[in-house]
Structures are given as structure tokens and as C-alpha cells.
């Protein structure tokens, strides 16, 4: 694995490009084919792919392993790490292992609580939070030391990312927390999927005012809605999700078989608006179990071709 090559995502963002990332959820089993299939759907359309870490606390193939499979087929992975399941010992260990396997991007999260998942009976960890994880990565990279102060024989040069949710409460504290994440080490931010553009704009304005968009690259989250039912389900059941009534009404206003297409239209409108916003450096397309749609969205949004990896 060529470890000297820089993160492709980092290069694109640093050169001022508008980045496109997407998401890949590993399978509930050891079948690599699923990962390869998803990879093939995304290849060429995105600059990097997030690989989720036991998302919604459902046991899946590890993010680390799935990242390696994607890397082997020529995609650039962003390894998601949650602090829910692993303590600082395991997390540092996995970071070093990931870098040794050529993974250069990490997204730090606390993680969905395990009560939502397939093993609510498990003991959760939360030894550290996502802020600590960001700082840990920064320290390992810039000081070459682990959390205990031990000098590493090689320091993982990771491009560090964090998540932000402009739609969760308390609203006024969100930007303070974003500042903390950047202070801790976050270099790029992926937001929760955007349907409420005015609220997003307000959050972005506050972030700009604090100078945060100068310090980190914000990628706006996009998820195509397939139906009014999906929209209503997400609005009611996904924590921190804000789907305004008008969006749901739009989907209800078209015949059922046209709803998915309408959902994509809404995505494209949002992407177009995001490209106009100062301080937004890209989009993060989370097409959950709907990866086939990503290519079409990227093309229709006028974001093709993607810059070649250097």
C-alpha cells in the first residue's frame, strides 16, 4: 500500500474543488460481493466513500475491513469510527492498523445508541466521545504520539473528519460545538441530510461568522427520499432529522410511481442551492441501500467528471 500518497479527498478540498462523497454500508455478514457491488455503483462518481461503523448499532462487517475491500478496487474510503463499541485502546489500535492498510480518511462519531440496534443487550463502551477521538487523531498525526504519550514508530497521517447536525437541538449551541470539533482536530465536516434549507443556511451563517468555514471544509448531507412514507418514517424515527411538511407534501402531491423521481428532483435542487452557499465545499450523498441512484444524481447535478486522483 502506498502510504506516502495523500488523501484524494484532502487534495481536492485543499485545491478549492467541490467534493462529492457518498456512503457505503457494509453487509450483515462476511460476503465481500455486497461491498464490491456497492463500490462499483459509486466508482467514478465520487471522490471518497464513507464506510459506516455498525450503523444504527446493527452488527455489520467492520468498517475497517470494508474500507480495505473498497480500496482494493480503486475507491478511496473514509473510515467511520464510533466511540460506542470500542475503548481508547482499541480505537488507537484500529487507527494504526487502518493507516497501515492505506486508509487515509477517518470520520469521528459517537455513534447511534445500541438500544436501537441488533444487540441492545450489549454493554456499551463510550470510553471517549467523538471530540476526544478527533483530538486523538490530531495528536497521533501531528505529534506522533498515542494518547498515553508514547512515541509511535510511524504516525498515521489521517485526514480527519467529523459530523455536524444543524437540525438537532439545542440549535444555538451547535455552532459552538462545531468550533470545538474543529479546535479538537476536525478538518472536514459532513452534515446530517438537509431538507430544511433555511435552517441549514442559518447554521452555516453562524459558522461563517465564527470563521469556521475558513478552518474546515463543510460537505452538505443529501439523502434522496423515495416516497412520502419514507419521509414521514425518517421524520418520526430518526433522531435529529428535520423534514419540513412542504417536502412531505411535495412527495404526496405526485403519483406513487413518480415519488422517487420527485425525491431526486428535491436532491438536485438542494445540491444546486448548496453550490451557491459560501462556505460549502461539497456534498455528501447518503443514499441508504439506494447506491444505484448516486451516479445519476452526481451527473444530473453537473458534477461530472470527478477530478482524477493524483
Amino acid at each position: 500500500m502506498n502510504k506516502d500518497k495523500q488523501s484524494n479527498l484532502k487534495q481536492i478540498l485543499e485545491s478549492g474543488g467541490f467534493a462529492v462523497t457518498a456512503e457505503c454500508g457494509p453487509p450483515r455478514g462476511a460476503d465481500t460481493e455486497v461491498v464490491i457491488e456497492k463500490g462499483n455503483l459509486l466508482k467514478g462518481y465520487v471522490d471518497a466513500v464513507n464506510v459506516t461503523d455498525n450503523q444504527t448499532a446493527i452488527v455489520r462487517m467492520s468498517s475497517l475491513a470494508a474500507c480495505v475491500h473498497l480500496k482494493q478496487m480503486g475507491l478511496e474510503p473514509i473510515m467511520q469510527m464510533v466511540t460506542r463499541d470500542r475503548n481508547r485502546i482499541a480505537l488507537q489500535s484500529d487507527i494504526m492498523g487502518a493507516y497501515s492498510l492505506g486508509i487515509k480518511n477517518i470520520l469521528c462519531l459517537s455513534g447511534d445508541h445500541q438500544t436501537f440496534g441488533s444487540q441492545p443487550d450489549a454493554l456499551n463502551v463510550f470510553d471517549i466521545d467523538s471530540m476526544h477521538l478527533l483530538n486523538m487523531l490530531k495528536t497521533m498525526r501531528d505529534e506522533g504520539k498515542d494518547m498515553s504519550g508514547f512515541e509511535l514508530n510511524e504516525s498515521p497521517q489521517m485526514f480527519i473528519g467529523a459530523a455536524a447536525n444543524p437540525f438537532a437541538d439545542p440549535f444555538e449551541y451547535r455552532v459552538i460545538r462545531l468550533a470545538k470539533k474543529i479546535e479538537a482536530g476536525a478538518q472536514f465536516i459532513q452534515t446530517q441530510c438537509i431538507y430544511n434549507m433555511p435552517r441549514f443556511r442559518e447554521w452555516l451563517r453562524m459558522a461563517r461568522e465564527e470563521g469556521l468555514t475558513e478552518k474546515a471544509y463543510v460537505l452538505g448531507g443529501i439523502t434522496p427520499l423515495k416516497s412520502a412514507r419514507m419521509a414521514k418514517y425518517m421524520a418520526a424515527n430518526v433522531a435529529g432529522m428535520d423534514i419540513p411538511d412542504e417536502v412531505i407534501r411535495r412527495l404526496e402531491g405526485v403519483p406513487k410511481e413518480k415519488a422517487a423521481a420527485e425525491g431526486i428532483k428535491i436532491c438536485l435542487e438542494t445540491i444546486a442551492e448548496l453550490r451557491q452557499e459560501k462556505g460549502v465545499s461539497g456534498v455528501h450523498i447518503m443514499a441508504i441501500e439506494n447506491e444505484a441512484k448516486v451516479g445519476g444524481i452526481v451527473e444530473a447535478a453537473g458534477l461530472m467528471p470527478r477530478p482524477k486522483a493524483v
Partner: protein
Amino acid sequence: MIVAEQKPLAEIKASVAQYEKLLILGCGTCVKTCFAGGEDEVATLASALRLAFKKDGKDIKIEELTVERQCEDEFIQEAAAAIERNDAVLSLACGAGVQDIASRFAASPVLPGVNTTFIGILEKQGLFIEECSGCGDCKLATYGGVCPVTRCAKKLFNGPCGGSQNGKCEVDPETDCAWQLIIDRLKALGQMDNIKHYIPPNDWRPSGAGGPRKLFREDLVV
């Protein structure tokens, strides 16, 4: 107080079924205040067990006794005679009390009658909520008197997470988001600076991560 809940009757009945003479030993401190194991609960449980066994044709003899606390030898010894003359002890104390009895009366089977749960408070009539997890390094001054270790489901020190909505926790819509409470409290106190900057990771050793804890107060020993 330490909050506990009495085990279901069926479970208790099954655990004592083999004994002819049973002592139900209550505790007058924490479990009394949460109505799980004080003298009233001992009396009710004794009566319920006698009825339940009588229905099965068994005439179990139950002695009822409550001591001030089952976590101190001075009070435990008051029950010594009663423990000796019965086949087994059903202790309604918290897990610590049950073990204290068991360690001092090794020849007597000591069974737990309650499930010990958390350190909490009586929020309002009938409602006990967990507020302290005994982390051993109290940081309530930083967080305006709201504990992120206990009351945040993810033990975040730099919260809130993205699942906080309308002041409620993603895990349970009835549960307040601790970080919303922290922020509200700090705002009211004018102490938002406490959480403006990075708060480093916790050392979990004082919390029991290093094994069962002990506290030796040499200054109290004569």
C-alpha cells in the same frame, strides 16, 4: 438513595422453595425509602409467600426481621440469632447488604429479594431516577450540577450528540437530554464558558474500571 425493586414473587418463591424455615431480613435505609425492602415490604412479602406456599400444600415458616442497615456489622449482628435458627435468609437489602450478610454467615444460604439498580433520587411521587453512577471523580461543578456521565446515555463530555431533539434523548423520548439540561443550567448561571472549549477524556480508574474499589479511612480507626 440506592434504588432497588423487589424481584417478582414467582422468582422469589422458586428460590426459597426448598427451605422449611425462612428468615426475611429487611433493611431500614435505602431500600426502605424506595419501598422495596423495609419492614412493611418484609411483612407483605412474608404474607404473600405463606399464602403462595400454602396453596401448594406447603406450610413454610417465615420469620420477619428488619435491621437498620445490612452494610454495617454492628446492625447485621442484631440479626445473628435469627439467621442461625433459620434454614436460609432472604435479604431485601441491596446487593452490598446481601453480600455482607453472606460473608458473615457463611453457613447460611443468603438469597437476594430485590434487584439493586441505581443511585438516584425521588423526582416526584412514585418516580425514582438515576442521577449518580459513582464515577469517583465528581465534575458536577463544571456541568452546572447535571451529570453527563450518568444522565447522558453516551457519557459525552463534549455533548450533545446529534440525536438530541426538543430537549429529549434519542434513546427515550421521555428522558431529558442531559446536555440540554447542562446548557440550560450553565446559561442561567452565566457559566457557558465551562463548555466552550475541549474537555479532555476521562480517567475511568476512580470509577471502578480498575476493579472493585475500596476506601480506607485510617483516621477513623482506633
